Structure formats: structure tokens, C-alpha cells
């Protein structure tokens, strides 16, 4: 009997331990990362001469992007030997938010961080405003609640179709589409040649946003940029005609033209599938150009924005809340702030920023003119950015301020769309589920 009770007690403790230990323990009291700073000073102008250390993190992305940032860090520390940069960066964009939260939980939130979820970290008091004297560097400075928190690394890159020129030629496609219906006609021609028309990296949930945003911008946001805030106020619904049309188009496209393995294909496999000739097109942004060229330098590809049914071009190109941000904890040390400001200034100097933009196929955000070499695909991107007739918008989860959606809704919604396509579900019924979840999320976040 005693043996039995002991076993029961052990099993209770074992169960409690394995289930709960990972979930507690952080009461929000984070400490700054260790620094070899020799002290503080009342006069910040003395700071660059003192030994100072700050921590830094960014989403490493593809190897070329990582290399571009690492090169700048090395160049900066070579010129400023008294500044030590402790680089925490070790994760890609797929799990960047999770990783940052984990870093924060263990008291290692970086002093300088590439921020992609500004609202979340500002609301939690983790970030400070971008110092006034840095703001003159930029021509684009997005604001959250009337304040600037980000030094934008690049402008928002419009997404479009990256297509294999050979596949288009083989399918007899000689002209790029002028309407969405013409685009669908091209998909039929491509499918008839036996190739998968479109590759999608659906295993990485963020990738699902690419097509979702395309249809939402065409059918909803281009007509009503404040739709998200109306949904939050319950004066708009996912069952509205425009939204149902967007999701119906999404479902049709995924059911007919997307590569069969899309749900087990990761975002970083899409370039390989495209260059291998298994698929003809990829809907993505200019950051993929380098990966595609690296996968097969001889692969010929083009880029264009897909028009809507009326022939208008609507692109995801308004500034969003992203870029280098300073942590509130790091900013308590004036020496660190000076060193970080020096680094940001250095990063955006044309000598460094130009090669960085060339590597990532980025759109400049600086006031100073930057010149760099680009390929024909990037020239088309730049043409779109400068095209006054193109309607500029943002994607579902990129809006901020009153138009911000509950942060937990995005991934849930992308999964809901996956399930709807797989189960051939009724669009309106699925959108009713989306309404219910959205309201539940809003309510939960108000607590």
C-alpha cells in the first residue's frame, strides 16, 4: 500500500514537473546583457573613446543577407575598435518572433534588434523611440502611435510573380497578363505542358501570407484601407462580399494551379523547385532573386506584379513598422546608445548600405542617394515602387495603429485557409469561423 502511494506521489510530481516547468518562472524582470562597459559618463561626446559593448540581433535569412550584415558589422568594429558588438543572431525569419521572446525570457533581449513586431515590443515597454539625431538619415519613417521606433533596413518590397522564362516559352506565353483573368489563362497553358504552374512554401506559415495578402489587397484593402479597424469594431465581416471573393479566388487558385507538395514545401525550398523546372512560377518578393540566382546562375527568370480583374496593379508597398530598434534596457546606458547610434549611422552610409541593398535586393530608405547594381527583375520592382498608378497598400498583418489585427490571429487564419482548401470547405462557413475567432482574440487581448 505504502509502495503504491509512493508510486502515485512520484507520478504526480513527475507529471507536474514535465508539464509545467517550461511555462513559468519569468516575472518580467529582465536584466541587461552583460557588458564590458567601463562606466558611464555625463558627457556623451566622450563615449566613443571608451570601451563599450552592445548586443545585436537580426533575422539571419539567407546566407547572402547574413553575409551582407556581418560584413558591415566587421567593417564597423574594425573602424571602431573600442566598440564590441556581441552578435546574438542565430535564427531565420520563420521563427524570429518566438526566438526574440525566448531571448527576452532569459534576460538577453538585444540592445540593438532588427524589429519586425514593433507594436508587440513597444506595448511591452521593450523599445525606445529612435533617437532624434538619426531620423534625418531616412526618407521613410513609419510611426506607431505618433512615435518613431524603427530605422528601416529596406522599404517594403512589393511581391509579384517570379517566373521561369523557359516555362513561359514552352507554354506559348508571349505576353505578360494585363488582367487577373489573363493570368489564370496563363496558368491553364502552363498546366497543359505538365509542369506545376505555381510553387508555394506552405510548410512555413508566414509564406501563406503572400497569396492571402495579394487577394486581400485586390478585393478589400485597395477599396477600403481601414477594413481591419472596421472588423475590430464589428462593422465589417469576413463574410463581406469583397472578402468572400478574395478567399474564393485564393481557394480556386490553390485547388487548381499550386504544386501538389505545397504543404510540405518550406519557403527555402521554393527556389530549388523553381530552378529545377518542377514548377513554373513563385509568388514572392525581390529577396528571392539572390537565392534563385545562387541556386542556378543560368536560370532565366522574370518578375511582374499580377493585375486585378480590372487591370489595376495593387501592391504591398506602404511603409511598415520594421527596422533596427533600440531596446529600453540597453538605452539606460548612454555609452551604449552612442555606440549604437554610431553603428546605425555607419550602416546606412552609402558605402555600406549600397552593397547591402544590392545583396538583399532591397529598396533604399535613406535620404542620401544610394547607387547599386541590380538585375532586370529588380529594375521592374523599382519601376513598380515609383509607379504612381500602382495602388500601394499593406497585407493583413502588416497594418498598424487602429488597423492592427490581434497578433495571434494571423497564423490561425492562414491555417484556416489551408484547411479550407484541403477539405474543399464552404468559403462563407469558414469565414464565419474567422469572424468568431477574430472577436474572441480581440476580447482576449482586451483583458
Amino acid at each position, binding site marked *: 500500500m505504502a509502495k503504491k502511494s509512493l508510486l502515485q506521489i512520484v507520478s504526480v510530481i513527475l507529471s507536474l514537473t514535465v508539464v509545467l516547468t517550461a511555462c513559468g518562472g519569468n516575472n518580467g524582470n529582465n536584466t541587461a546583457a552583460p557588458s564590458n562597459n567601463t562606466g558611464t559618463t555625463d558627457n556623451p561626446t566622450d563615449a566613443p573613446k571608451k570601451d563599450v559593448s552592445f548586443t545585436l540581433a537580426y533575422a539571419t535569412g539567407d546566407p547572402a543577407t547574413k553575409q551582407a550584415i556581418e560584413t558591415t558589422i566587421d567593417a564597423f568594429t574594425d573602424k571602431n575598435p573600442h566598440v564590441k558588438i556581441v552578435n546574438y543572431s542565430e535564427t531565420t525569419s520563420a521563427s524570429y518572433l518566438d526566438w526574440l521572446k525566448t531571448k527576452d525570457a532569459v534576460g538577453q533581449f538585444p540592445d540593438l534588434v532588427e524589429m519586425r513586431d514593433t507594436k508587440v515590443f513597444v506595448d511591452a515597454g521593450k523599445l525606445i523611440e529612435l533617437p532624434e539625431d538619426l531620423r534625418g538619415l531616412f526618407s521613410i519613417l513609419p510611426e506607431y502611435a505618433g512615435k518613431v521606433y524603427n530605422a528601416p533596413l529596406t522599404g517594403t518590397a512589393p511581391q509579384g510573380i517570379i517566373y521561369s522564362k523557359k516555362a513561359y516559352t514552352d507554354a506559348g506565353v508571349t505576353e505578360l497578363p494585363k488582367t487577373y483573368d489573363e493570368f489564370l489563362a496563363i496558368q491553364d497553358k502552363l498546366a497543359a505542358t505538365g509542369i506545376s504552374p505555381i510553387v508555394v512554401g506552405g510548410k512555413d506559415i508566414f509564406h501563406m501570407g503572400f497569396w492571402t495578402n495579394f487577394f486581400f489587397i485586390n478585393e478589400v484593402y485597395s477599396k477600403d484601407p481601414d477594413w481591419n479597424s472596421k472588423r475590430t469594431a464589428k462593422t465589417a465581416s469576413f463574410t463581406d462580399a469583397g472578402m468572400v471573393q478574395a478567399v474564393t479566388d485564393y481557394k480556386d487558385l490553390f485547388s487548381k494551379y499550386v504544386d501538389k507538395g505545397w504543404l510540405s514545401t518550406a519557403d527555402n525550398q521554393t527556389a530549388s523547385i523553381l530552378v529545377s523546372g518542377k514548377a513554373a512560377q513563385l509568388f514572392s518578393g525581390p529577396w528571392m532573386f539572390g537565392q534563385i540566382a545562387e541556386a542556378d546562375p543560368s536560370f532565366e527568370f522574370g518578375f511582374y506584379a499580377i493585375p486585378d480583374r480590372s487591370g489595376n496593379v495593387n501592391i504591398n508597398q506602404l511603409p511598415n513598422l520594421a527596422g533596427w530598434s533600440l531596446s529600453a534596457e540597453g538605452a539606460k546606458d548612454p555609452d551604449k546608445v552612442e555606440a549604437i547610434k554610431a553603428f546605425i549611422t555607419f550602416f546606412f552610409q552609402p558605402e555600406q548600405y549600397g552593397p547591402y541593398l544590392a545583396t538583399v535586393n532591397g529598396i533604399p530608405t535613406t535620404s542620401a542617394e544610394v547607387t547599386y547594381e541590380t538585375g532586370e527583375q529588380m529594375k521592374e520592382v523599382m519601376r513598380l515602387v515609383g509607379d504612381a498608378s500602382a495602388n500601394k497598400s499593406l497585407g493583413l498583418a502588416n497594418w498598424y495603429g487602429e488597423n492592427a489585427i490581434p497578433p*495571434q490571429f494571423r*497564423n490561425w487564419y492562414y491555417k484556416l485557409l489551408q484547411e479550407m482548401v484541403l477539405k474543399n470547405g464552404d468559403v462563407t462557413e469558414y469565414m464565419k469561423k474567422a469572424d468568431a475567432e477574430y472577436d474572441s482574440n480581440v476580447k482576449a487581448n482586451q483583458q
Partner: protein
Amino acid sequence: MIAQLKKKKWTHYAIWFIFPAFLLYTAFVIIPTLSSVYLSFTSWDGLSSNIKYIGLDNFIEIINSPRVHNALKNTLIFAFSLVILENVLALLLAILVDQVRWFRNFFRSIFYFPVLMSGIIMGFIWMIIMNYNFGVLNQLLDMTGLGFLKADWLGNPDFALIAIILSTVWKAAGYYMVIYLAGLQGIPQELHEAASIDGANRWQQFRSITFPLLAGAMTVCVMLSMIGSLKIFDQIAVMTDGGPGFATETLTYIIYKVGFGELRQGFGTALSMVLFLLTLVISLVQIKVLRKREVQM
């Protein structure tokens, strides 16, 4: 009197030996566990210092959430499938290894080898094998003229759950095999010899001698595999990320996703309380049922 004094002195020393371990255990296990209980009644986002008490709201949401119901269903499917398959396979392997005359250690090592791999690495290996476009499995089917059987093993909701279950069985069975093997080797050979003389065949010997005498090992294996299965996470995170759609989301997976990815640490912690209670109830029922049939030698 002297004996009593000695005992008291020893108890006094023992407390000092236990104290450091108890201190560490309190700091790293008991306090976080108790703080988890508190956090489950809050709306904490995991980042801010503002922790607001919201009573039972998280638990009410759990009761009403279709996503949680789906995750609970998947968790139970995983748990019961894994417990049955892992234990059946482990027992078969143990019997085979116990009876083999040559290369016994070699087979033991081969079957145990997958246990040594981390769940993450194992997940990556199986993910690569089962990838639709580049996976070895589909390429083998193509090469052997069975291309019509090709499928998106991890992208099809009908196959994804099964794929994760089978890969987990492959990884874990060797561990339970070792426990069963120890149990088999503890059964006196005389019992089998006596049964043979009485005319019992191999199946009868297994049913009437081996299986009852393995009850102790089975209690341990079933309990460990149930607890392990209820908290399955690595394989799902790597192989399917809970997808396609919500097809492979389990309680542990959404605890992590809502807690860290969706900034709802309070809700995630409430879910972990539910998982704890589920684990506790199932474990106690298992112990009660399985211990009844244990035979003391």
C-alpha cells in the same frame, strides 16, 4: 538509548545532505510550477510586466475553443496509438533479441540506436525522407514503378498524423525494448523448462509465463510511453508545424504556439494545467489497472 541517539544524529546529518538538492529543486521546479499555477489565471502576454488576474476566463475559453478540442483529440490519438504501437513493437523486438543466438549485442545496439537521436534531428530526417518533391520515399516509389502511390505524406491531413506516429514509434521502441529485455532475462528459465515438460507450446508459455511475469516492466513502459506521448512536441514542430491546417496540432504544440508565438502566456499556462491534469488522471488510472496484474516473484 544509544541507538536512538545515533539515529537522531544520522537524521540530523541527512537533512544537511538533502538540503542543497531541496533548495535547487525548490528554486528550479517547485517555484516555477507554482508560478505557472498563478499565471494560468492571468492574461499575461509573456513580455510586459503587467500581469492581470482574470479569474477562470482562460479555462472558460479552453472549454469553448474548437482549436483546443481538436488539439485534445489529436493528443489522445497520438497517446493511445503510440502507447500501443511502441509497446507491441518493443516487446516483439525484446523477444527476438532475447532468443537470437548470434550478434545479440549488434541487434540490441541497432534497435537502440534511434533512441540516441534527438527528436529534432529525427524529425528533420523523416521530413526529408517524406518530402513530396525531393523525398527518398516518393523517389523510391517512382523508381519501382509505384509512382501512382506517391503522396504528400506530411502535407496530407490523412497521412501526416500517421507519419508522425510511425516515425516516433521507430525512435522510441528501442528504449522500451531494453526494459522488456531486462524483464525477460529476469524470468527463471526453470519455469519454461517445466512448462515444456508439461507439453506447453511456445505461445502457451508466452501467454501463461512470459506475459504475466513481464507485468512490472509493462507498467513502467506503458506509463513512460503515455507520459512521453502526451507531451510529444519536437517531431510535430519540425515535421509539420502543427499542419497541414490544424491536422497535427497537439496540446503541447499549442501551449508553445499560443504562449510564445501568439503572446498569450497566461492562456498557454492554463492549457499546460489542463495537460497536467490529463497526464495525472491517465497515469493514475494506468497504474491502478496495470499494477493489479503484476506478479511478485
